[in-house]
């Protein structure tokens, strides 16, 4: 494959970032926005071509005769060569998951670019302050995210991982005059940075034992026939495991070092993907502009953790203890976030907790994936859900953005009964809700059903647990839907200022994403994205593949659960009635805990302020102030004194200069002679 297209995919957003960042203030708002959107549109076309070439061209470097998809390194240049083995490369890796992300990221990013043209203006058409900066940051984010998914080695991934973190920080804090936005951006950055510390340690352990950063060396799956392929190294994941077990210290604190490495790497993923207990930043991140929430905090960046686990999946398979941890963390998070989402008032917070819960679904799915069961169904299901979730969650966020833009508030209490005023938003939001609730034939049904099937194959406990969470999902989404669009009639005081659908730049992305959410479920993922590149089913892919391979016993139950949950939500919230209040009063303690997010933030507050600041930081601050600063002051004092003392040497008299020269040469020789001979 030619390297031009892949290179352009990365270069264009970077160039747009530099252009808009450096010259944006000199451009008009409209020009900056159009340039950014056009740039992203180009990237969209290019990455579609790249991804579709990978999936459908059938070229021998992408797929074998037997239909097995291969990892293909488009380019891989040496960036920093410290030693012969410690080399940092930058490259572009194409394999099923990176090609899939090449569809997801530009699609959502382009929709958000387009949408923001309308969203970032007020009702009078005046652009927001910092509009150009906003587009520059969006480009930076797109560049970083694309660089992350196509990384050829774990260090490149880490670099871009931090870059997405930085751009997320910049975008959350976009309204930097608002204190809540500033503290939210700091919180997001600090929490994810803390998690990345684990990630970095994990990377270092992994590369210390294996001597490589390259994914091709780390994860080339133990598949027969892969040895014939030149692009992939011969080292298999089993070989990697052998390196660990044969090392001088294979165990550490009761677990194997490899487990430690993988769990620490997963910690980085927990931070980015907002798994419990590192989830606390995501709800606050909703302080950023809503399109940003759609792009970064729903569809792309927050699934980086899932992507990371999928990327290293062959390694995780070698250490199933790490996978079990992932399942437990994911399942707890999914349930927790779904519970909290049932009580929130701010519609973006509901969506945020819903995102946490859905990402946890993906994590669980990866955690329960085993090659023995349905050819690693869980892996495929996780990736499938990542794909569909990105589409419908971005849709929901953009709808929420349209509502907020129309009403001027984040709370559903200010909305109620909007269905007549904003029909397009209403229909698209409903499609999003149906998709996330898992109603056939919308996208979420298929991917969630695959996840539940995978859980069923792993253990019945997780299956029941996750089905329950799926039911909660349907409930809280329809609760939100009814509270926004039904409940009671919207009071309009002035017909001129009635809420209405937004301009086409905002509605078009909604319609497109809604259309995608309707059909995305039929993408034959089993033939495209599997853990070892082999298709999961015999035969050929068609539009109805997913329907044909449905496990109806699981699907029927999950459909029934979803419908029951929706019916309950309908009963409770369609019309104004005292039922929700009664439920709340019946279980006040539970409601309170859910509403306050189980007091996680207060717990963190206590730990950081009382324990860490008080017991650790104060002594360190004292040490810094008195010992380190003292040493520096001393150095400065001595330097200054010495400088004054010797200034006479530079007299300007050339006789002196020559004397010093001669004396210096002779002394140099004499002292060396005395000391050495």
């Amino acid at each position, binding site marked *: 494959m030619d390297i031009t297209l892949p290179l352009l995919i990365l270069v264009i957003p970077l160039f747009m970032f530099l252009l808009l960042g450096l010259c944006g203030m000199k451009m008009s708002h409209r020009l900056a926005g159009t340039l950014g959107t056009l740039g992203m549109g180009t990237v969209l076309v290019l990455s579609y071509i790249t991804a579709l070439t990978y999936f459908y061209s059938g070229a021998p470097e992408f797929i074998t005769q037997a239909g097995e998809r291969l990892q293909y390194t488009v380019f891989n240049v040496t960036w920093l060569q410290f030693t012969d083995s410690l080399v940092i490369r930058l490259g572009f890796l194409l394999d099923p998951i990176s090609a899939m992300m090449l569809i997801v990221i530009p699609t959502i990013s382009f929709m958000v670019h387009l949408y923001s043209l309308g969203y970032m203006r007020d009702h009078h058409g005046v652009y927001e302050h910092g509009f150009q900066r906003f587009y520059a940051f969006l480009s930076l984010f797109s560049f970083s995210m694309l660089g992350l998914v196509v990384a050829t080695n774990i260090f490149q991934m880490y670099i871009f991982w931090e870059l997405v973190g930085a751009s997320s920080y910049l975008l959350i804090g976009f309204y930097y005059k608002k204190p809540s936005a500033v503290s939210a951006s700091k919180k997001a950055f600090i929490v994810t940075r803390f998690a990345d510390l684990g990630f970095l340690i994990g990377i270092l352990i992994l590369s210390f034992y294996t001597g490589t950063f390259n994914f091709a060396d780390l994860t080339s799956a133990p598949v027969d026939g892969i040895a014939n392929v030149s692009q992939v190294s011969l080292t298999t994941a089993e070989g990697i495991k052998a390196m660990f077990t044969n090392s001088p210290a294979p165990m550490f604190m009761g677990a194997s070092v490899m487990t430690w490495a993988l769990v620490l790497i997963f910690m980085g993923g927990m931070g980015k993907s907002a798994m419990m207990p590192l989830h606390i930043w995501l709800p606050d991140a909703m302080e950023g502009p809503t399109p940003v929430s759609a792009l970064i905090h729903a569809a792309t960046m927050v699934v980086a953790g899932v992507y990371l686990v999928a990327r290293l999946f062959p390694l995780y398979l070698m250490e199933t203890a790490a996978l079990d941890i992932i399942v437990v963390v994911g399942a707890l998070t999914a349930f927790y976030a779904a519970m909290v989402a049932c009580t929130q008032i701010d519609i973006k917070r509901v969506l945020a907790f819903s995102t946490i819960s859905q990402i946890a679904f993906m994590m669980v799915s990866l955690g329960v994936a085993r090659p023995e069961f349905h050819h690693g169904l869980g892996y495929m299901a996780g990736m499938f859900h990542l794909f569909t979730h990105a589409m419908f969650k971005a849709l929901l966020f953009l709808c929420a953005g349209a509502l907020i833009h129309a009403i001027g508030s984040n709370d559903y209490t200010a909305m109620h009964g909007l269905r007549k005023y904003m029909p397009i938003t209403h229909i698209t939001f409903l499609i999003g809700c149906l998709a996330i609730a898992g109603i056939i034939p919308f996208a979420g049904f298929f991917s969630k059903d695959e996840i539940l099937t995978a859980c069923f194959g792993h253990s019945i406990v997780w299956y029941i647990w996750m089905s329950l969470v799926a039911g909660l999902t349907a409930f809280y989404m329809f609760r939100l839907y009814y509270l926004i669009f039904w409940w009671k009639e919207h009071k309009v005081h002035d017909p001129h200022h009635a809420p209405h659908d937004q301009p086409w730049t905002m509605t078009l992305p909604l319609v497109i994403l809604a259309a995608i959410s309707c059909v995305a479920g039929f993408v034959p993922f089993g033939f495209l994205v599997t853990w070892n590149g082999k298709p999961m089913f015999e035969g050929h892919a068609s539009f109805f593949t997913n329907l044909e391979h449905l496990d109806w016993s699981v699907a029927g139950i999950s459909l029934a659960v979803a419908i029951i949950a929706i019916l309950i939500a309908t009963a409770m919230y369609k019309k104004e009635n005292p039922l929700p209040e009664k439920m709340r009063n019946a279980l006040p303690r539970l409601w309170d805990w859910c509403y306050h997010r189980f007091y996680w933030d207060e717990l963190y507050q206590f730990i950081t302020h009382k324990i860490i600041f008080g017991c650790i930081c104060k002594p360190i601050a004292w040490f810094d102030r008195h010992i380190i600063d003292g040493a520096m002051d001393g150095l400065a004092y001595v330097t200054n004194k010495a400088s004054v003392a010797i200034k006479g040497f530079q007299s*300007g008299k050339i006789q002196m*200069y020559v004397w010093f020269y001669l004396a210096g040469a002779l002394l140099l020789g004499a002292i*060396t*002679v005395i000391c050495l001979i």
Partner: protein
Amino acid sequence: MDYSQFLVMKQEIALLVVFLLVFLCDTFMPKRSQGAIGWISIIAFAVATVFGFCPDLIYATGNAFSGMYSSGTAEIAIKNVLNIGALIVMIQALRWAQQDMVKVRRGEFYELLLVTLFGMYLMISSRHFLLFVIGLETASLPLAAMVAFDKHRYESHEAAVKYVLTAVFSSAIFLLGLSFVYGLTGTLYFDGIAVATMASGISTLLVISLAFVIAGIGFKLSLVPFHLWTADVYQGAPTPVTSYLSVISKGAAAFAFLIVLWKAFGTVYSQAWEWMLYALIILTITIGNLFAMRQRNMKRFLAFSSISQAGYIMLGVIAFNSLGLTALMYYVLVYIFSNLAAFGVIGAIENATGKVHMDDYKGLYKTNPRLAFTMMLAMFSLAGIPPFAGFFSKFFIFTGAINQGSVAIYVLVLIALINTIISLYYYLLVVKAMFISQDDCTIANFRSACSERFALWVCVAGIIGVGIVSCVYNYLYQMA
């Protein structure tokens, strides 16, 4: 005699062709078209610079004149690095050369510059002390004429006289040392000296003569205590000459110093010159820093800063391994970009307003934000702040030194590190003057010449790019 061996000296021949071209143009061109002489030199020299990067050159390495001259890949690389620096200096000098007092002799400036560069080439490539001395003198004496180029200015004369006298003195000491070496070993070939010292071992006379040789080359490098001429000369000389002295002359001498010590005296490394250099490095970095703190004249300030930088460059010599060689070349390259950026700003301001005092720079950010920004980048790079190139060059030079492995070197690197903190202080003084002290803006907004801006853009690109674009380091690594 086999005349084909001249073909080994391809870069020297290219330089001579450029020189002859400039000389002929200068002599025979009519008076009114003399204005083009600067551009002719620059274009011709740019062609020679590009020629240095021809891949064919790498395959045409070898020795000539029974081993007196040698051109390997490392020599080609360092000559290329120096070419880049000299080219930037030539571009920066354009505006200065158009001044009324200088205009009549501007051709000579470019000729002298090319001749001294030729001398530096010989220093770099010589493997025999006779050729080395010829190169050294060719690189030194015309510089005195360049220092005195602003004939109308008193300081310029004074500087030239100081330079000539001390240069002659140091040459005498150097030649005395060489005659001792010849007496001890019976040869002036670097290889022969290495063999002879290996056989005879260390002796008092050898150490003394080595000290004299080091003093002789240390003069060019302005190592402490052979540095005292530096500040006066840098201050008095015209700014383009100062930048040439501080960057190109120093870079060439550093590389030649490395070749002399490694090739001729490599066998007595740990017995003799490792410790001499050790002491010189500590003295140079520390005393350079201590003096730099007190300077208020920008050119004098950069003179002391360049003394201390020379100490860092010497870490590549004391490393005595291939990593040190690469790091030295890389350091010189980065130093070229950073220091020339600083001198470019100083020159631009001096040409426009005649001001060179640090207090005049107060509030420069308000009136000339781009120049202030460039100056800031240069200062950051010189101080070694990431992600600018200066950080990477310091990193590599420390790595090279630490790879030598002895505890003493660790201590040396630690001292060098502490000195970077001190240096940060005075580099930031300039930044502070430009950005923070905004009460009085003595320099009005002005538009610098096109050539000056171009040269500064190149330097800024170098400061930002050389560290991040790794192929630069890899190129030098492969050439070394």
